[in-house]
């Protein structure tokens, strides 16, 4: 057995940027005057000073009739009600969990906002409070929906639906939230037999598709299902998808099911998944994907 | 360090009266509090009080090896300490930002301005130089620490005299004050730091008090800054600028700095003259062999002070000289005929001995010696 090692020189560095079709929008930097104060409302990323509206972050302008906002190119996740996110339980507290969700403040998941085993909305008893760690413990990953946004900007989540809740086996990739488009659906079962959750908060979860044996209840069955090793084929596709996403992110391309799927198909020409790790391959895939997307645009 | 908070009404009140041309203690804008300097018995120790603010400065010196890069220069080391004595909010032996800031300012003002002739402190090049150490202790924090402590530092440095040395071959003899007259430190110029509190960008208060300082640097409840700040101007008697430092809010028009510098010029002149005058008078007094001591600070006529010169008691005179020997003899005797002590000393293991009180041995595990390995 010999290990595969590749050390490249800085001089052979590839430039990962892919020229997208659309031309770049107007770009603002902090302190730059956007417009006069009159008949405009100042939104996020702006501030008013001697009757001018100025940008407070570096980004592009968004204008909703009178409201002017500057959307930063890269920032922590700013949640909105109804967003689907993937988060990690940080702490078990009195009748609630703290969840890390890549936003400025940790989000909370109230004990009252989860479906406890045995279903139905029953009254949370003292036992439940003490069983909390059994249900979700530090480190657990969950998919959830943003229920409400507190005044300080921190999010309150809920998992009151079968599609939400604790996540089974799989891997997580973290990308900039700004690379994720808001869609109706963020749960995708890709044709290649892999399901992907693209959280609005930039956390992407890849896992083999659930089989239907486990609907509702019957906890221990789920448990031991969770512990079954994933089949080799699934594993390979997952690895491939993971690397594809990495490739797309490396060249700052928007992520959704189509782009991921395109990238996946393009990547198939590299039969060894680990070849996707080296920069040329990544660039190649990103490029081809962009190409296909552009084609669709034209139609 | 716990910070002290001011109520909004205090702030706004101060802001207002200042804008109306008044100050809490009735001074004018560019009027300073009473400056008072008193010396200790040793050279280079003084207490400077500026209004309520009191600072103790003490210069000490020792012979050390010079730095590699400056083999022919002495070393000046300034150390500021703010103990709980200054104000309750300070913690014991904890470095606060204020301490560091103050230390840095003084270093800028007295080291970087090259006001001291460091070459003159050299004894043997690359081997022995004098290192001066200025210890600045804040006794009471009544505002404008910077100005007060800088005056203290300056005075103590100017007042300090180091012992004389003579070199014979490679050995260096350090003379005590008694043997040879000590040598004063050479100062090229006398820099002083002065503080100005700036209120809403135009008003300039010299020698701000504690509350004025904290108000002008603080912002209003909405967090909008009041255009206030503290401006520190370091300047010597020749009206040469040697440091400028602004903290607090950003400041827009430069002419206020100019204003500050102008008034600083006069003030620095006054201070330096005072310092020089006082040092000379102190010297003459010392010439006259009259005692100078910090005890003089204590105002005798003050209502809260008390002096008692004559404290005498009647005691029978008594000489122990010969008693001692006697007592020793006594003890020797009673050692001899000391009743058998209730402990007996038994040599146990090699190298060890133990006391066993008669009523029974102790069970302990001794650090064994090589002799017992048969475990």
């Amino acid at each position, binding site marked *: 057995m010999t290990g595969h090692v590749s050390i490249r020189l800085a001089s052979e560095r590839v430039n990962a940027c892919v020229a997208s079709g659309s031309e770049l929008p107007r770009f603002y930097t902090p302190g730059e005057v956007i417009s006069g104060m009159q008949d405009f409302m100042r939104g996020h990323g702006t501030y008013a000073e001697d009757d001018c509206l100025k940008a407070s972050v570096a980004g592009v302008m968004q204008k909703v009739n009178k409201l002017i906002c500057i959307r930063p190119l890269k920032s922590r996740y700013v949640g909105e009600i109804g967003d689907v996110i993937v988060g990690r339980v*940080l*702490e*078990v507290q009195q009748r609630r969990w703290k969840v890390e969700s890549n936003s400025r403040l940790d989000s909370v998941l109230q004990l009252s906002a989860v479906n406890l085993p045995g279903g139905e909305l029953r009254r949370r008893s003292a036992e439940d409070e003490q069983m909390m760690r059994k249900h979700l413990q*530090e480190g657990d990953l969950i998919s959830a929906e943003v229920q409400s946004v507190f005044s300080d900007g921190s999010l309150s989540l809920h998992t009151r639906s079968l599609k939400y809740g604790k996540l089974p086996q799989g891997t997580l990739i973290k990308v900039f939230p700004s690379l994720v488009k808001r869609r109706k659906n963020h749960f995708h079962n890709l044709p290649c037999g892999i399901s992907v959750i693209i959280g609005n908060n930039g956390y992407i979860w890849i896992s083999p598709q659930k089989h239907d044996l486990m609907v509702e209840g019957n906890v221990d069955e789920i448990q031991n299902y969770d512990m079954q090793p994933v089949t080799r084929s699934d594993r390979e596709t997952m690895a491939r998808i993971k690397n594809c996403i990495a490739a797309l992110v490396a060249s700052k391309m928007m992520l959704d099911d189509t782009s991921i799927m395109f990238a996946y198909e393009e990547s198939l020409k590299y039969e060894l998944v680990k070849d996707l790790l080296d920069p040329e391959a990544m660039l190649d895939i990103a490029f081809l994907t962009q190409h296909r997307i552009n084609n669709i645009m034209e139609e | 360090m716990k910070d002290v908070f001011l109520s909004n009404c205090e702030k706004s009140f101060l802001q207002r009266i200042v804008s109306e041309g008044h100050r809490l203690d009735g001074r004018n804008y560019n009027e300073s509090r009473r400056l008072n300097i008193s010396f200790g018995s040793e050279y280079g120790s003084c207490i400077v009080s500026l209004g309520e603010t009191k600072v103790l400065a003490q210069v000490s010196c020792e012979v050390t090896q010079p730095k590699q890069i400056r083999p022919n220069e002495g070393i000046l080391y300034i150390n500021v300490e703010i103990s709980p004595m200054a104000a309750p909010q300070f913690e014991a032996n904890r470095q606060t930002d204020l301490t560091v800031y103050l230390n840095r300012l003084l270093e800028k003002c007295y080291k970087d301005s090259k006001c001291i002739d460091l070459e003159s402190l050299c004894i043997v090049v690359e081997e022995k130089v004098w290192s001066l150490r200025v210890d600045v202790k804040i006794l009471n924090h009544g505002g404008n620490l910077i100005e007060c402590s800088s005056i203290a530092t300056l005075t103590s440095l100017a007042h300090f005299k180091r012992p004389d040395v003579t070199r014979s071959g490679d050995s260096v003899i350090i003379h005590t004050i008694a043997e040879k007259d000590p040598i004063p430190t050479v100062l090229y110029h006398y820099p002083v730091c002065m503080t100005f509190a700036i209120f809403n960008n135009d008003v300039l208060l010299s020698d701000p008090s504690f509350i004025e300082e904290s108000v002008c640097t603080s912002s209003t409840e909405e967090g909008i800054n009041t255009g206030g700040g503290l401006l520190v101007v370091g300047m010597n008697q020749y009206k040469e600028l040697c440091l400028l430092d602004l903290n607090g809010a950003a400041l827009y028009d430069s002419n206020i700095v100019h204003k500050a510098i102008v008034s600083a010029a006069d003030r620095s002149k006054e201070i330096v003259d005072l310092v020089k005058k006082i040092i000379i008078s102190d010297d003459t007094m010392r010439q006259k062999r009259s005692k100078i001591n910090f005890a003089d600070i204590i105002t005798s006529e003050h209502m809260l002070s008390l002096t008692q010169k004559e404290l005498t008691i009647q005691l029978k005179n008594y000489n122990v000289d010969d008693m001692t020997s006697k007592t020793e003899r006594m003890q020797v005797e009673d050692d001899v005929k000391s009743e058998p002590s209730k402990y007996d000393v038994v040599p146990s293991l090699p190298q060890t001995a133990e006391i066993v009180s008669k009523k029974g041995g102790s069970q302990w*595990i001794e*650090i*064994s010696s*090589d002799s*017992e*390995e048969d*475990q």
Partner: protein
Amino acid sequence: MPLDYRRFNGPDDSVSYKRFTDNYLKSYDELYEELIDKNSRRKDGRKLDEARSMCMFFARTDLISQAKGSAYIELKKTKVVCSVFDPREIPHQNEFSQLGQLYCEVKFAPFSCVRQRRPHAPDAEERALSVALRQALEPAVCRHLFPNYQVDVFVYILEHDGACLAAAINAAGLALANASVPMYDIITACSLAIIGEKVFVDPTEAEEHLAIMSPDTEGTNHGIITMSMMSELKQVSDFMQIGSMDVQCVTKVMEILEKECETIVPNIQKVLVLNVVQCFNQRKQLEAEAKEREAALNAKMEEWKKILNAG
């Protein structure tokens, strides 16, 4: 080096007088000569493969009255004291941890070393040893039984004549058991010095010193290996090697180490058993006394109950 205001300091230019004795600098070979005599016996008369633990292992528990558990181990000249305390709060730690922590600290007495005087402040070697010790002990302790708290293990080396890490680990294992900190297994450790073809089991300080010195001839193996084991569970909890040796050598040596670690176990066991017996005998007496106390107490309880029920 900055002056330590919390202690009395000597002059900063002082050096040990040994520097000026005639036999300070010796060549590699001279030193080598000193170690072994012609009939391949070591200075202290041991055979190469003979550990000090075999003949003069000396261990005691309950040395330190103030500690929860303590142990003292002596390998001929190497003397090590260890004490263990009850769990305490982990200073400035703020996330919930299911497992407790072990805090280990190894300290040399200032006078413990022949070559130089030890500084009071912990130096690099002590820090490294502390880490190694923690590494060696952690697998053996049931850390899930004191979540969010830490157990302190302090080792003090009074005299260092080689194999001090091994000694420290053994002592610490003993002390932990003595403090009745739950453990999965007894932990034992042993170290070896390798010089060329020769393997010194349980080396002395002189042997170690030579072993880490690089020989003049290229390509000869040299170095020190220390290994700690949980012999019942057949698990290696720490393995430290320094020097330069080929793999065959390492693997070969590992067998010896395993064997040595096993041979120490009975000694430890004996000490612990003795300790337990002792404790129980003491407790017997106390219980005897306690008995009649209980009796009297119960009597009192009864009558008080009566009074209470009365009104």
